[in-house]
């Protein structure tokens, strides 16, 4: 009998990929309509397909292993972080001797050694260090990030690569984004076809809001150990500033200082439950993580990459949630696009403002707090009387100083009116976004 894989394989182990060849060289009733069973499918994965993995942490390590064993041979990985001791309970490509080294570099070397023929290219840098030409060179981008800002940025980047001809999307400009996320025993995997299915910005409300404690509670009526820790972190540290530096959550001296002061405050108010672990958790905003959830979510993402690259099955449409606290639970559904999505709708977004008397700082507050925008520290420019004017620019210290006075000025004073266009730059997107001011009260221009 002829055993699968007797032909010349793309690497010297001729039977190595026979598992993949069965599903790629045979057809089945659940294949994508475009699927053609052929050795070309595996050849495409091995010879042409170029993947980018963003993040070499818990999900990233798993993703690289999974993708390498699903036949992909040209994988790039970006991560700006170095390896820490607390990574070793799940980031299985790292050892104790690797602590302090680049995650991307160590992971890439490990995979390339363990799976001969697979070449992983590391980039020990930030995603913002690369431009459109770099991102355009990939077939599929997979993100395993813990930062929402970075997710939004790469989402914006892939959307900016889309090209439209007479309003019709040019399919060849589309780079799918597969995104995974985990927290403790919960996780999610999703497939984003930029410009076609719901993007990160369409579903901003899916991210859990960050836990914040009202300032008056932590200052006046603390009840929980967390309140005492927050007090030391946001009020006492800047007052007493023991080392004249900002808090470094990785410096045990800093954590110890906060621990002691928080303990004093807790005793004063009769509050129980301050522990070193809790102090660290609150100061560093630590999210619990285990190996198993990372394995599951990364695997779900890798399966989708395989489906998209080969058409051997219809890809996930488009969101799967996972939770294994009580049994094993998953739920798959179609997240919906937002008609006026800031990133992918191609419709300029309006921002609702009470009226021309609102101050520029009020507008910035809306951009940061409205669930539609959730920006971090937006910079604003506008064309006023035919001239390009910087209204506020927080990222460059000298310009910030010069433009700070504008914050207290009303929109009217700045020459902005209902329908004015603003160019907004923020760390959540690589692109300048255009938003249109919309005043709630109609402008009273006929009242002279």
């Amino acid at each position, binding site marked *: 009998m002829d055993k699968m894989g007797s032909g010349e394989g793309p690497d010297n182990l001729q039977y190595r990929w026979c*598992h993949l060849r069965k599903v790629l060289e045979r057809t089945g*009733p659940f294949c994508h309509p475009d699927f053609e069973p052929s050795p070309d499918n595996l050849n495409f994965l091995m010879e042409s397909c170029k993947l980018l993995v963003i993040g070499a942490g818990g999900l990233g390590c798993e993703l690289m292993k999974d993708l390498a064993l699903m036949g992909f041979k040209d994988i790039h990985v970006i991560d700006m972080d170095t390896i820490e001791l607390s990574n070793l309970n799940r980031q299985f490509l790292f050892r104790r001797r690797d602590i302090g080294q680049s995650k991307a570099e160590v992971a890439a070397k490990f995979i390339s050694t363990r799976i001969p023929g697979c070449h992983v290219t590391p980039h020990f840098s930030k995603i913002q260090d690369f431009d459109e030409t770099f991102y355009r060179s990939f077939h599929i981008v997979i993100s395993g990030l813990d930062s929402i800002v970075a997710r939004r940025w790469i989402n914006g980047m892939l959307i900016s690569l889309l090209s439209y001809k007479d309003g019709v999307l040019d399919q060849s400009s589309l780079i799918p984004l597969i995104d995974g996320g985990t927290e403790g025993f919960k996780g999610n995997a999703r497939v984003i076809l930029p410009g076609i299915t719901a993007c990160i910005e369409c579903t901003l409300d899916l991210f859990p809001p960050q836990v914040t404690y009202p300032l008056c509670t932590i200052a006046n009526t603390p*009840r929980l150990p967390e309140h005492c820790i927050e007090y030391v972190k946001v009020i006492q540290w800047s007052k007493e500033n023991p080392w004249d530096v900002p808090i470094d959550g990785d410096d045990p*001296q800093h954590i110890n200082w906060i621990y002691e002061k928080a303990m004093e405050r807790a005793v004063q108010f009769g509050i129980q439950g301050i522990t070193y672990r809790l102090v660290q958790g609150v100061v560093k905003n630590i999210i*619990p993580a285990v190996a198993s959830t990372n*394995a599951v979510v990364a695997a779900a993402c890798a399966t989708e990459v395989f489906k998209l690259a080969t058409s051997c*099955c219809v890809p996930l449409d488009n969101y799967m949630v996972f939770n294994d606290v009580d049994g*094993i639970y998953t739920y798959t559904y179609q997240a919906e696009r937002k008609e006026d999505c800031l990133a992918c709708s191609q419709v300029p977004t309006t921002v609702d403002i009470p009226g021309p008397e609102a101050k520029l700082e009020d507008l910035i507050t809306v951009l940061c707090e409205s669930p539609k925008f959730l920006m971090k520290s937006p910079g604003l420019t506008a064309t006023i009387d035919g001239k390009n004017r910087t209204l506020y620019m927080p990222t460059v210290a000298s310009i910030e100083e010069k433009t700070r006075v504008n914050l207290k000025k009303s929109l009217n004073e700045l020459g902005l009116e209902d329908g004015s266009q603003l160019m907004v730059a923020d760390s959540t997107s690589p692109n300048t976004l255009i938003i249109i001011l919309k005043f709630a009260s109609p402008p009273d221009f006929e009242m002279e």
Partner: protein
Amino acid sequence: MSSPAPKSPEQSEKSKKYDRQLRLWGDHGQSALESAQVCLINATGIGTEILKSLVLPGIGAFTIVDGKKVTEEDTGCNFFLDAESCGKSRAQVATQLLLELNPDVRGDYVDENIDQLLENSPDFFNNFTVVIGTSLIERTLIPLSKKLWDLQIPFIVCRSYGFIGYIRVQVAEHTVIETHPDNQIPDLRLDRPFPSLKKYVDSIDLEAMEYKDHAHVPYLIILYKYLQQWKAEHNGQLPKNYKEKEDFKSTIRKGIYVDEHGNPEDEENFEEAMKAVTSSIKSTLVPSHVRDILDDDSCINLTSKSKPFWIMAKAVRDFVENEGEGCLPLCGSIPDMTAETGKYIALQQIYHNQAAKDSEVVFRCVQQLLHQLNQPPDTITEKEVKLFCKYASSLYLVRGTSIADEYDPKTLNAQNIAGNLENPENTMVYYVMLRGVDRFYSEYNMYPGEFEDQVEPDIVKLKACISKLLSEWGCGPLAKDDYVHEICRYGGAELHSVSSFIGGCAAQETIKFITGQYKPVNNTFIYDAITSNTATFAF
């Protein structure tokens, strides 16, 4: 820095390394993990993925049983077999590469076929905490299932077959104290306040307060006060249905202070009180699933061999019948609420102290029971009793079924299959497929579609195997052949991403058994990677 840093136990190397998981299962969960011994049968791709997610968090030790040699095919789906290892013992290579992940873990291997091992060393499995089996054929699976069922060792069987994943958990009995429910309903006892709570709240006069104090009274006190008033006006009854609860909320709303213009003041605590009506105004009862545990034979009729869980359950049962006057021991923690520090902390103390009193009663009873049962007094610590009492309302018990019974048509729950198959696209169809593959392997000693030139004839043979199975079970025939075609397409292929998905899930189920925390899956889990859906069935 002048002041020396306090020596904190949290700073040990180990707690730094395991920090992200200690925040989930705690130091006690970790020490259970570190004393566990796990056995893996067959170092397949899925098998080493399971062990990976157990070695990383630091189980005590693992043992791999596998008599096969590494093949080229193996290296295409298994990360813990490298290209140079072809021809070597699969158990040995996998053990070595897995041990590199964590120097705290011990690992060894038996380079022997599982069938031989079962025959030559029948006591081999006696000391394992959990046994995991992969790539087991029916002939091996059944005796192994029987053996582990008798030994009362949890047995987890996993498969990765093309785009289909499968986990079957076999456990005779498993109990969980810390289930970590997502939304715990607070145990406030507003309907039957205990004396110290009553005394404290009765000493507070809401109406006499200045606005600032009034707006900082914990909502628990507000609910209590208005409930007393309501009960006095309604023959001692609680607001029961939706309408009464709405009425009750509006009486609370009337309590909000108004300013000099007659506009209500901003009182967040009153808003919280109204929001909490639905969940907190209710009769305190023993939940029915806990009632079942307390009424279980194992609880009522303790023996000298009874496990700590059942001894504590019996003591709680006695508490409910006597001191508790029909209620479980108090949980002792209250949710956070807008409040001034002093009153909140006072309430917290009152609940905490009452819970300590309740658990002390239970602990004394536990000690008596241990004495009567001739078990050493240190079998159960006071700390364990406290934990048991704290989580008494979310205890969990499962009694499983054996795989051997499931594979016997006389004892199989065939209605479960037939019922689900009324929808021909129900995930149950893959269970039937995998059972068909088992039957096919038993008859032909290979997987359907394993050989390139046999796919078409294998489709016919697999269809016949499945028809036979279904008729043995008394089920009707399959509605369509699509699934048979798809299964033959796989030809026994193991796709790494499917193995990795199931590997992660199975590792977490293993951790649930070891730590006694979280509810395990009951008892069959199927992953369909084609549509990215999963389903759980109980056999």
